[in-house]
């Protein structure tokens, strides 16, 4: 007899077809209800959403036993799982994964005012029994593992972080068919994520921000786990996320939203995968679609693998850069031509060029430092290393994301046509080129 292994039936644990949950009280009186989804936790465990204190819950707490029948929405294969209740989690990664998924299911089924996750009930799977059903052929689907491999092969050719992120998003389109995606990096100081690369949108949104904990992107970054939703839900849209941020943002609000987020207006599917460095969030890979249920367990696995490799590649690029010796800093003479007015606000390090918002935070502080030195001495050549060592910039000691901040700054200046160019001229070195004369103001 072949034993069914839980990871093999994960497709039946997507919540696309609801599951049947049977429980019994201490006298053996059964109870049966439909449940929105069974969440795969690991090869031995699943979790159910606890939404109401009802008969099912009373039975589970009393007898700790349940039987759930799940259905594969692609093949109609069905399985009966015997479950043993272990614990309820009311916060943390599993809870947030399930809360996001439930929000999508609730919204799609018209129950957004009714379904609310109170806890994630974790169960040990004692037995999996296949249930006879009319099984149909599984539709042809992209092989996510092969797509991940082809993508990873291309990453090694990227020579800097900007090229790496652009390659990553191109690979998602080419190998996974993902048309809308972006990379955001976390600013450890401001606890906000900023977009450094995007693909498939009418505008790039480079520099747009998402707060830690806001929307699928912010939750994935905060919890350090992939978050995905299979249906449109207003609860997790960017609009809802920025409104949440607005409540606490105060003065920062205007700048935080001065750059429009490029995301889809009404995504049906969303997935956010954290890019981790030694278990700490460095950034987030985000993808979305206008079609529902585009990102399953396999896509989640593949994008997680890819993010791991991207993280390692970023670390390698930074290491190579740091190892380079500091070069002498020659002066330039580009102080002629039109006047370019830079205004710096100390309160949040925001910088405006000719009244156009460019950047804020650490990237803003870097721009201000470069501009001052250039204005004072005509200096053009700089190194990443000296920025890293400058205490005034207050870069965090751990995962400083300096290269990502420079990439962000470089792309923002380029997009806005500010007359200022950051030109990389080797690993860990760049030139600060100004097409005119800088006039600096500080507020």
């Amino acid at each position, binding site marked *: 007899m072949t034993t069914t292994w839980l990871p093999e039936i994960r497709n039946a644990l997507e919540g696309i077809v*609801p599951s049947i949950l049977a429980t019994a009280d201490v006298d053996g*009186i*059964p*109870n049966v209800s439909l449940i929105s989804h069974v969440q795969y936790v690991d090869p031995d465990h699943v979790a159910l959403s606890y939404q109401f204190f009802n008969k099912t819950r009373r039975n589970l707490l009393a*007898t700790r036993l349940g039987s759930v029948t799940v259905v594969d929405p692609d093949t109609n294969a069905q399985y009966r799982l015997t479950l043993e209740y272990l614990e309820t989690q009311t916060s943390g990664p599993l809870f947030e994964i399930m809360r996001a998924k439930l929000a999508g299911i609730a919204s799609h089924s018209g129950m957004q005012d*009714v379904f609310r996750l109170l806890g994630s009930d974790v169960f040990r799977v004692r037995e999996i029994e296949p249930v006879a059903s009319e099984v149909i052929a599984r539709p042809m689907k992209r092989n996510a593992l092969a797509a991940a491999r082809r993508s990873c092969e291309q990453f090694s050719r990227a020579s800097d972080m900007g090229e790496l992120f652009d390659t990553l998003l191109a690979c998602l389109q080419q190998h996974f068919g993902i048309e809308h995606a972006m990379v955001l990096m976390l600013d450890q100081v401001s606890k906000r994520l900023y977009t450094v690369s995007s693909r498939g949108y009418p505008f790039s949104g480079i520099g747009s921000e998402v707060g830690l904990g806001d929307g699928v992107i912010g939750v994935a970054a905060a919890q350090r786990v992939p978050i995905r939703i*299979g249906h449109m839900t207003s609860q997790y849209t960017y609009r809802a996320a920025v409104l949440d941020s607005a409540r606490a943002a105060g003065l920062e609000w205007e700048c935080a939203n001065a750059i429009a987020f490029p995301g889809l207006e009404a995504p049906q599917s969303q997935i956010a995968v954290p890019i981790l460095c030694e278990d700490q969030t460095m950034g987030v890979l985000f993808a979305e679609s206008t079609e529902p249920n585009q990102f399953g367990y396999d896509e989640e696995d593949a994008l997680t693998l890819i993010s791991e490799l991207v993280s390692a590649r970023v670390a390698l690029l930074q290491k190579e850069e740091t190892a380079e010796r500091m070069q002498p800093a020659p002066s330039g003479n580009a102080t002629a031509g039109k006047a370019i007015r830079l205004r710096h606000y100390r309160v949040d390090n925001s910088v405006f060029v000719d009244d156009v918002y460019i950047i804020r935070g650490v990237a803003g502080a870097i721009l201000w430092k470069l501009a001052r030195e250039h204005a004072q001495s005509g200096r053009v050549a700089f190194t990443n290393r000296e920025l890293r060592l400058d205490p005034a910039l207050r870069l965090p000691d751990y995962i400083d994301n300096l290269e990502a901040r420079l990439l962000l700054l470089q792309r923002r200046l380029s997009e806005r046509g500010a007359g200022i160019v950051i030109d990389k001229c080797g690993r860990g070195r760049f030139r600060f080129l100004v097409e005119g004369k800088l006039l600096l103001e500080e507020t």
Partner: protein
Amino acid sequence: MRVGVGLGGLHPSCDPGKAKPNMPRAQRPHSPEAELAALSACTDDLGAGSVLSAELAEFCQSGVSVIIAVGGRGNVPLSGQGCACRVLEDGRMRILLLRRSNHAIIAAADQDAPIAVTFSQPLTHRSIQIKGINPATGEPTLSDRQAAVEQSAGLEQELRDVDYARRFTEAYCAVDVDDLVALDFDPVAAFVQTPGPGAGAELRK
């Protein structure tokens, strides 16, 4: 036949060419309060021992999802699905289910295990649970077979209306009339199980 109610959405790979409407389903979902209010307003004389109004009996036989639980060995509950329901003249209820999918449930019923059946409508989420005792299994009649075919077809149409792909609903709701078993029981209580405040309340006059 496999029956069930869908809260989730169409999986794209079920029918790649099918357009996917963005309208949420159950725009006017049913509610427990509505169920309880309807019962209060009901003028039916349910009679001694009866738990179903005529309207509820009709709902259970209207081609909705039929899901089952019985107490299994060692008091471990068992979950399963039925194809259809009939309310018999003597007040007993009959669930028609496929033998090949429900061996354990049928065996437990033959051991006099108590039973619970929930009827749920995909379009509205309206759900009613019936508790039953004195189960007995037997061969289905010709009328039972017809009911199984008709009610399964009704459920399949509902599932398609809520956006499941045809290739899935056809498999999910397929009926092999030669594999049907009739599971009869005495209904002893009915509960409203539509999600929302008031869910779980007993339905009685």
